C-alpha cells in the first residue's frame, strides 16, 4: 500500500478562526492506484472536500495549516512550492466540481477555456490546442463539438456542462482525477450517464480517481475502495465489499441504513439523529459518540472519554471504534435489518 501511485499520509488541515482552531481534516491517510477509484463519503462538513482541495493545493495557505504528506508518483504535494503544485494541477492531477455552471467562467467560450488549459501546460499552437479540444469534446460525448466549442457555458445544458468540465479535467491526461460531488447538481438520468462516462474514460486514460460524494448509490457503482469520513477523521476504510457488506463502524452503518436501497422505491431517508459536532470543540472521546446508538453498549461511558484509534480488521479493512468486533457486527446486523424492514414495509 505504501507504494501505491497516489498516497495520502496523516493529512491534517486546520483553520484558525475568531472562534478558535477549526480542525477540518485530522489525520487522514489513504491511497489509490492508477485505474482505481476510491470514494470518500461522509456528511457535509466532514472534511472530504477540504481533503481534496488540500491535495490540489487549493487551500489558501494563509488561512489554513496543512500538515502531513501526499504523493502522486514521486511528487510530494504538501511541502511542494506553489509553483510546483501549479504545474501539477491540470496536468498530473485535475478536478471536477459539483456545480458545472458555476465552475465554468461565464464570460469565456468553452473552447477558449479548454485551449487555455492545454496551453498553460504544454507548448502547443492555438490551432492544435483547438483541434485537441474538439477531439476531447467529442470523447466526452458532446454532439457537434466543432460548433459547440464556440458556445458559452450558459448555452449548454447541465449535463453538457459537466461533460465540458470532464473534458477540461482530462485533456492533459492526468494520472489523478478528483471528482468532488460530480453529479449532485444534475438530474438522475444525467447522473448515471456522467458516471458511466467517467468510468469509460478512467479505463482509457488509466487515471486514479478520488470520488467525493455523499451518495452511496454512486459509490456502489464505481468505487473500488471506500473511505468514510466523520468530523475530519477517517472512521472506516475498506474495499467496496468491506464497507457495503460488512460495515463495522456504527456511523457507516448509519449512513448505509439511511440510504434507500436501489431496489426500494425512493422513500424518505432516515438520517442519523443529531448534528455533527463543532470542529472547534471536539468532544474528548469518540467524535461520533453523542450520536452513536451503540455508545451505551460500553461500560463507564468509555466512548465519551477515550478516543479510538484506526484499527485494522482485515488487510484491506480498518475501522475507528471502541466496540469489539462482535459488538460491531451485531450492531450492523440489527440496524441494517431494521432499515431493510422499513424500506420493505414501505414498498
Amino acid at each position, binding site marked *: 500500500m505504501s507504494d501505491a501511485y497516489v498516497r495520502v499520509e496523516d493529512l491534517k488541515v486546520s483553520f484558525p*478562526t475568531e*472562534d478558535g482552531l*477549526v480542525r477540518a481534516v485530522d489525520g487522514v491517510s489513504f491511497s489509490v492506484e492508477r485505474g482505481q477509484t476510491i470514494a470518500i463519503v461522509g456528511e*457535509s*462538513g466532514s472534511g472530504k472536500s477540504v481533503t481534496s*482541495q488540500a491535495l490540489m493545493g487549493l487551500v489558501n495557505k494563509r*488561512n489554513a495549516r496543512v500538515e502531513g504528506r501526499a504523493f502522486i508518483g514521486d511528487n510530494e504535494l504538501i511541502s511542494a512550492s506553489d509553483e510546483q503544485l501549479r504545474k501539477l494541477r491540470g496536468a498530473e492531477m485535475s478536478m471536477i466540481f459539483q456545480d458545472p455552471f458555476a465552475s465554468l467562467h461565464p464570460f469565456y467560450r468553452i473552447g477558449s477555456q479548454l485551449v487555455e488549459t492545454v496551453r498553460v501546460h504544454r507548448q502547443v499552437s492555438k490551432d492544435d490546442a483547438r483541434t485537441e479540444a474538439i477531439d476531447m469534446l467529442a470523447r466526452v460525448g458532446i454532439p457537434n463539438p466543432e460548433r459547440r466549442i464556440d458556445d458559452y457555458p450558459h448555452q449548454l445544458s447541465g449535463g453538457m456542462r459537466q461533460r465540458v468540465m470532464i473534458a477540461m479535467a482530462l485533456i492533459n491526461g492526468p494520472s489523478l482525477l478528483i471528482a468532488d460531488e460530480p453529479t449532485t447538481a444534475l438530474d438522475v438520468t444525467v447522473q448515471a450517464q456522467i458516471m458511466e462516462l467517467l468510468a469509460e474514460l478512467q479505463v482509457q486514460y488509466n487515471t486514479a480517481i478520488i470520488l467525493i460524494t455523499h451518495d452511496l448509490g454512486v459509490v456502489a457503482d464505481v468505487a473500488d475502495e471506500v473511505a468514510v469520513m466523520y468530523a475530519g477523521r477517517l472512521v472506516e476504510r475498506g474495499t467496496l465489499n468491506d464497507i457495503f457488506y460488512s460495515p463495522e463502524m456504527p456511523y457507516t452503518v448509519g449512513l448505509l441504513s439511511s440510504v434507500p436501497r436501489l431496489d426500494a422505491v425512493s422513500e424518505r431517508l432516515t438520517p442519523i439523529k443529531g*448534528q455533527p459536532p463543532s*470542529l*472547534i470543540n471536539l468532544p474528548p472521546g469518540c467524535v461520533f459518540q453523542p450520536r452513536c446508538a451503540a455508545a451505551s453498549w460500553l461500560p463507564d461511558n468509555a466512548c465519551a472519554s477515550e478516543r479510538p484509534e484506526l484499527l485494522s480488521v482485515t488487510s484491506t479493512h480498518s475501522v475507528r471504534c471502541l466496540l469489539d468486533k462482535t459488538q460491531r457486527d451485531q450492531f450492523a446486523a440489527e440496524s441494517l435489518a431494521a432499515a431493510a424492514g422499513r424500506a420493505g414495509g414501505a414498498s
Partner: protein
Amino acid sequence: MSTDTTVPPAAAPPPSVSGAVTGLSLRQLAWRRLKRDKAAMFAMWLLVAIFLTALLAPLITNLLGVNPYDFDLTSLDPAQGSLPAGPWGGASLDHPLGVEPLTGRDLLSRLLFGARVSLFIACTAVIMIAIIGTTIGIIAGYKGGWLDTVIGRTTDLLLAFPFILAILALSPVLTQRLQAMGLSPESSRVVYLVLVFAFFGWPYLARLIRGQVLSLREREFVEAAVANGAPTRRILFREVLPNLWAPIIVYVTISLPTLIATEAALAYLGVGIVEPTPSWGKMLADSVRYFAVVPTYLFIPGTALFIVVYAFNVFGDAVRDALDPRTGRNVR
C-alpha cells in the same frame, strides 16, 4: 452615489466553518461577533455618548452657563467687521469653543444643540424609510404580478431622479405648502426634510427587501404556512418579516450616516433649519464665509460631523460583517 448595501448572493461558505458554531441564533451570533470588534464597540459607545449629549444638551449647557441663542456683543470686535475678538475664534472661559461671528453666540452650545436637529432628522427619516421600504418591498415581492411591475417602475423612476437637486428645488414650494397647512416655518422645514429623505430613500430598501422576499417565498417554512392556510398577514408578519431583520438593520446602519451628511450638505446649500436653531450643516454653511479668518468656526462643526459619520460607518460596517460574515473584513 450608488449604494453598496446590496447583500451579496450567498457565496460558498469557507470550508468547515459552517456548523462550527451551532445552537446560537443569528442574533446572538451577530452580537457575539460585534462585541469582539473593538473598533465597533468604541464607535457604538461614542455614538451612545453623542446621542445622550444631544438629548441632554439643555441640561449640559445650563450647567456650563452657556446658551445657543443669546447674542454676546462683548465677544465681538466691531472694528473688525464683528469678527470674534481674540484668537481661536474668540475662545474664552465663557465660550470654550469660541463664538459665532456677527452674533457672538456661543459655539459650544450651538454645537450641542445642533446635534439634536441633525440626529433627529436622520433618525426619523431612516425609520420612515425602513417602514415604507420594507412594506413596499414585501408587497412587491410577495404579491408579484402587476403590483410588482408598477412598484418596480416607480423605483426605477425615483432612482433616476437627481434627488439632491430635487430636494433643493422642491424645498421652497413644499415648505410653503406645509406652512399653509399650519406648521411653523421651522417645523415645516424639518418635516419637509424627513419626508423627502423618506420619499427618495425607500426605493433602495424596497428593492433589497423584494429580492429577499422572493427567495423567502420559496422556502419551506413559508410554503408550510401557506399550506396550513395561514392568513397572508400572519405569514408576512410571523414568517417573512423576522427573516428580513438582517438586511433592514444593515440598511439602516448604512443609511444613517449618509442621511446625516446629506442633511448637512443641504443646509450648506441653504435648505434646512431656520434661525435661530442651530444645526451642524448650517454652522458649516455659515462658517464658509469666515473660514479664511476664523478657521476654528469651520473646523468645529466639520470635525463633529466627521466623527459622527465616521463612527456610524465603522459601526455600520461591523454590524454588516456580524450579520453577514462572508463579506466581512474580519474573516481571515
